């Protein structure tokens, strides 16, 4: 399940790859975590994104959360809370394209595309064909 915005297309791509490599189709969906954030009162109103569970729900399934960048870990905490309200998966794993460090919570990824040591002042921007017209990761 992808976390919008950029986790959603990444999850779609991963699901397609899994199907391609092992011939088994896997369910795929998106999970908006805005309503579960702990910083809603620290900025302007955040627009909500789409939530769509995979066909058949998530009960007793292995759910892989997918996001573009793993940073403080707060998004993933919110995602775990959101997931709990939608059902009871058999297990939850985390896949991220970039792990940039600076965790503020005891959370780690099970699958990492690239570990990218960064300083806190830097910005990691993930670009995806679906949003930006091309794929890429830029460190600013």
């Amino acid at each position, binding site marked *: 399940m992808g976390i919008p915005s950029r986790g959603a297309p990444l999850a779609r791509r991963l699901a397609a790859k899994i199907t391609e490599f092992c011939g088994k189709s896997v369910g795929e969906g998106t999970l908006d975590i805005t*309503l579960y954030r702990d910083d809603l*009162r620290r900025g302007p109103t955040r627009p*909500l994104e789409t939530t769509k569970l995979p066909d058949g729900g998530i009960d007793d399934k292995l759910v892989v959360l997918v996001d573009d960048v793993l940073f403080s870990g707060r998004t993933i905490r919110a995602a775990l809370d959101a997931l709990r309200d939608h059902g009871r998966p058999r297990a939850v794993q985390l896949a991220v394209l970039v792990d940039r460090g600076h965790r503020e919570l005891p959370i780690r990824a099970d699958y990492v595309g690239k570990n990218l040591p960064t300083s806190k002042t830097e910005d990691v921007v993930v670009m995806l064909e679906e949003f930006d017209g091309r794929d890429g990761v830029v460190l600013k």
Partner: protein
Amino acid sequence: MKHLLSTDGLDRDQAIAILDTADRLKQALLGREVRKLPTLRGRTVITMFYENSTRTRVSFEIAGKWMSADVINVSSSGSSVNKGESLRDTALTLQAAGADCVIVRHPASGAAHRLAGWLKHTGTSVVNAGDGMHEHPTQALLDAATLRDRLGSLDGRRVAIVGDVLHSRVARSNVHLLTTLGAEVTLVAPPTLLPTGVEKWPVAVSHEIDAELPSQDAVMLLRVQAERMTGGFFPSSREYSIAYGLNERRLKLLPEHAVVLHPGPMLRGMEIASVVADSPQAAITEQVRNGVHVRMAVLYHLLAHEEETA
């Protein structure tokens, strides 16, 4: 956004943002066993109803509770209002007691605006849940949400609002909101039930319901508000029903895709025939369902951001 007092002055982007949030909330809650979001945990919402209401009060209460706010209901009977406390003092008391949001329904037009004025410089938001014959913005928003569900978009759609426009805050809020969202609104009513100055509203006016129905994408019926009537506005309820009621014959004049709305409470046999209210074109129960999501969205837009004290 700090308050929601009227749809007059709500711009298109704000209105669409609220409607989109409502759609997403509906989607997020779909098929869930636990209909509870943690978003407004620790926030206190007080509903203050100085007029009778079932659906609006219940709908606000459910909306607040589904988002984990603490919701407290105050009605004029059973509160110090009965001892003669003024609206201002009641509001300041509720604010001092820790209300983050006060939802108010009041028989006097403009009550919610006054309340917002008194609560200026505090962090408390005000939602107008109907003030006299002025506005009822969340009703218009849920009507727009229902029309968007059924018709796609409101741009260029034609909506007739039929009945007691004069006494109707629902009509006023809808005229502003629906025209902001690009719809063409026609008011259909006997001349006695139209407000003075209606010619300055951004609407068409007609007295002949049969002539208007074939070209409409939606018809919104209004209840004849006997409790606000002091004179003779029409000869008899039977005559009103014959001239302006949506009956089975008139339902057939509408295009097949057209939607029938009613803000409730309905007077079956008066402004709407029972068969029409129960027909597939009627979206009356969808309106109530959307009401909860729209009010959740309003609370989200008012309370889930950094504090504004302006």
